[in-house]
């Protein structure tokens, strides 16, 4: 592989971390982000399940991208993504029942996560399999990291715990609103502001 080829692949990988973070910049898939970030554990679970499907669907979409006529690409992508999610769901249920027990609710939710669709449409339908793989991994890491941060903040302030362990003093009265849906918007809003500040300072 040439030096520039490697460079550009690395760029596809890292862009999802900060510069094109799926939650803070692309702002797709907020529905899943709101629903699954009430605790750090749930958020991490959602992030991992999402990353898996993201990588898988990116690879498949990039592989078949030249065979699919433009007019029917959306139904084809949706079919690919939902098939992938269902396979993951069944496999987890059959072979990793304990993991499926804790992730169970999130796996089917990935179908409605429009980042997967968004990346299929905006990236993997136009790029090579290798670049799409990198893009999928990068988006997965970026999503998992931010949703876990949101989950940790909401759990710590809204419930006084972190990954299920008590972190706040016992007299602490939790701010319940952070666990409720509006709390997710508040936290995401603050993180976006912070993210803009970082972008302006370091990436100008």
């Amino acid at each position: 592989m040439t030096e520039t080829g490697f460079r550009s692949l690395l760029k596809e990988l890292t862009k999802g971390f900060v510069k094109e973070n799926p939650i803070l910049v692309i702002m797709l898939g907020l529905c899943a982000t709101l629903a699954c970030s009430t605790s750090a554990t749930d958020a991490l679970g959602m992030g991992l399940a999402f990353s898996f499907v993201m990588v898988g669907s990116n690879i498949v979409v990039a592989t078949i991208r030249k065979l699919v006529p433009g007019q029917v690409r959306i139904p084809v992508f949706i079919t690919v993504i939902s098939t992938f999610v269902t396979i993951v769901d069944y496999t987890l249920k059959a072979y990793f029942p304990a993991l499926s027990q804790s992730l169970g609710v999130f796996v089917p939710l990935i179908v409605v996560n429009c980042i997967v669709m968004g990346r299929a449409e905006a990236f993997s339908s136009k790029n090579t399999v290798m670049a799409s793989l990198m893009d999928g991994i990068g988006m997965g890491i970026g999503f998992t990291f931010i949703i876990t941060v949101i989950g940790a903040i909401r759990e710590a302030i809204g419930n006084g715990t972190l990954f299920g362990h008590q972190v706040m003093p016992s007299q602490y009265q939790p701010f319940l609103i952070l666990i409720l849906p509006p709390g997710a918007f508040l936290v995401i809003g603050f993180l976006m502001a912070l993210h803009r500040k970082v972008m302006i300072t370091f990436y100008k």
Partner: protein
Amino acid sequence: MRDFIKMISILFVVCGLAAGSLAVVNAVTKERIATYEERRRDAALREVCLDADEFKNVTPDRVWEGLRKGQRVGYIFLREVQGYSGPITLVFGTNSDGTITGLVVLSHTETPGLGAKIATAQFRDQFKNKRLEQVMLKKDDPAKGQIDAITGATISSRAVTGAMRSTLESLGKEEAGGGK
């Protein structure tokens, strides 16, 4: 026209492949999932009726009798009820006089962090040793209710409580009717 046929055939092939791969995955995993779910249900039966050493299925997959050395020590019910975001499957036991001996939430799709707390021991253990008239949310019946709703998840809490209550009520009626 040529494009038209191409589109249709590609969609057809993609959907066919998707259906085919799902059929394969389903065939491979079906049995394992079913055994696993059965094992979980049996574990739930034991958990809600600790006194029993044997279970007799009275109504298929709905009602069991808990037996200890052949003697009936309690009933176990499996109920499905509509929760906040989907069906909740409950397994709970009562002893012969109708006191609740335990509750297990077998499956649910409630909101993680809120309604999903119906599956925690903290919520479930409230029902132990409660009688029919006490199985009511405190906020719905301050006088008799003995069950604390989960904060932010009243609908889920009410669904569980309501399902248990209605089962106990119909059980009571049946027994009263049968006595006449």
